[in-house]
């Protein structure tokens, strides 16, 4: 196997496959290495795939990719123990071309996507773990795998090895992540007949709905839960930062069962049949946790580079974009046969100039602030529920009087000054 390629991509998830696809399409000799039995067999995602970044790679992919449903409605729930305040948006324009996003099942989607890269000319090798990068004179020149005689060489190695990125750590691109930089998320795929899903979520044929659930879904801990519609199954999941999980002594599967049996959630799942249970980490450190992304003969993309916008549940789209940008930088680097860090920093520059780093920069303080000040999900969500209940209950009190009572209950609980400070802090974190 001591062959030399133009590019070796480690990991056939959305980031790695995107990079391999673009490189192969431009005539580069690409080896794509996947540790699982097939691409997608180690990958987990709540399930939302955005159209825009995927379309930039494969135009009109929705005509052939294994997708579940185009999402036409996005709901947000602020949930208390026996109540929920809801808002959301439903628009039929999302149900037709060019669409906004889709629910997908990753084990199927990733296989299809990797097949597209292979059709374009990339060589895919499954069931192979890259154990380390081969470094010579301060330059990455290839990888060592767990196969016999498993050394392979390339001008550039692309680390798309996911949230744990042991390879990035080995190269000193990042230290071990802290428990507050990752979210531990567990989910279940629950089979349910299509008609039941359509009835329960008020959907028609080929329409999907996503529900993001805050508050009691994590027992007030920093995190969220989600309920997404597939063709004939639902994805239900919940996650919090690992640090919150540790602090609250939560067992993630107990939290999932708590959510599944919550009176606001249970009716949606009634009669469903669990088909799979999955756990995964999400890199949620944001802007400040992004490691070094380019070195001599090496670039880092996707989850391995912590490219996730937790607030907007965007990740796979950033993975794809980063993979594409890395590929474009490699193609340029090949033109002048220069794979130094300075040359590959074209990728870094593109990344930092793109929506990815702009969005991560916008929310750079958010996770930290919400972790440090847990009152937002823990106190304000129940307060919102109590306020809504009070306001909408008709009991002979005048509306003006009710408004006053609602305001007073909020300021009584936390104090006027504290409330104002909380509002200002939250606004600063997301502005």
């Amino acid at each position, binding site marked *: 196997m001591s062959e030399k390629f133009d590019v070796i991509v480690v990991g056939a998830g959305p980031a790695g496959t995107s990079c391999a696809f673009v490189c192969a399409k431009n005539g580069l000799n690409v080896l794509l290495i996947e*540790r*699982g*039995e097939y691409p*997608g*067999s*180690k*990958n*987990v*995602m709540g*399930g939302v795939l955005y159209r825009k970044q995927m379309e930039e790679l494969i135009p009109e992919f929705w005509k052939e990719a294994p997708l579940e449903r185009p999402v036409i409605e996005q709901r947000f729930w602020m949930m208390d123990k026996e109540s929920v305040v809801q808002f959301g948006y439903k628009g039929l324009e999302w149900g037709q071309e060019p669409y906004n996003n889709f629910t997908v*099942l*990753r*084990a*199927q989607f990733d296989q299809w996507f990797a097949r597209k890269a292979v059709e374009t000319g990339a060589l895919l090798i*499954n*069931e*192979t*773990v890259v154990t380390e990068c081969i470094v010579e004179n301060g330059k990455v020149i290839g990888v060592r*795998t*767990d*196969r016999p005689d498993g050394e392979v060489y390339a001008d550039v190695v692309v680390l798309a090895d996911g*949230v*744990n990125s*042991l390879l990035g750590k080995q190269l000193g691109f990042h230290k*071990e*992540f*802290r*428990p507050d930089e*990752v979210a*531990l998320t*567990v*989910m*279940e*795929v*629950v089979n349910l007949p299509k008609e039941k899903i359509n009835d329960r979520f008020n959907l028609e044929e080929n329409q999907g709905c996503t529900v993001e659930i805050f508050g009691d879904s994590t027992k007030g801990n920093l995190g969220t839960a989600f309920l997404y519609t597939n063709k004939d*199954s639902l*994805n239900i999941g919940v996650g919090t930062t*690992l640090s919150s*999980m*540790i602090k609250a*002594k*939560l*067992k*993630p*599967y107990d939290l999932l*069962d708590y959510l*599944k049996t919550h009176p606001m959630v249970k009716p949606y*799942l009634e009669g*469903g*049949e*669990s*088909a*799979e*249970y*999955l*756990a*995964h*980490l999400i890199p949620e450190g944001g802007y400040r946790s992004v490691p070094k992304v380019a070195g001599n003969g090496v670039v880092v993309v996707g989850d391995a580079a912590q490219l996730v916008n937790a607030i907007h549940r965007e990740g796979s789209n950033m993975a794809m974009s980063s993979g594409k940008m890395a590929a474009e930088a490699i193609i340029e680097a090949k033109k002048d046969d220069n794979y130094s860090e300075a040359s590959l920093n074209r990728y870094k520059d593109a990344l930092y100039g793109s929506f990815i780093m702009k969005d991560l920069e916008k929310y750079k303080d958010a996770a930290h602030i919400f972790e440090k000040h847990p009152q937002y999900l823990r106190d304000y969500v129940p307060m919102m529920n109590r306020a809504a209940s009070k306001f909408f209950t008709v009991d002979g009190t005048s509306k003006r009087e009710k408004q006053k009572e609602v305001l007073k209950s909020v300021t009584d609980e936390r104090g006027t000054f504290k409330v104002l400070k909380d509002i200002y802090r939250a606004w600063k974190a997301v502005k």
Partner: protein
Amino acid sequence: MSTKNIEEKQYLLRFKCDTKSHLTVLDHDVCMTQCPEKFCTVFCPAEVYKWEGKRMQVGYEGCHECGSCRIGCPYQNIKWEYPKGGHGIVFRLA
């Protein structure tokens, strides 16, 4: 049926087990003497870690390879590798 506990959840999964563990507790004494909380036995999503009075039992066969134990162990006492290529958990759906 919808699952109600971790045993039922784990039963839904397909694993292609290696004969050798990819998870190693480096020093069981650290768990015994310095870590009364035994955090890994709580947050591990697959209940891989079980404290057996004197040592940590590691049921690596049911591991989801999420990485939480490596990051969450306050004593960096868990050596965490990927299972051999093609081994370990095999997700079929999401």
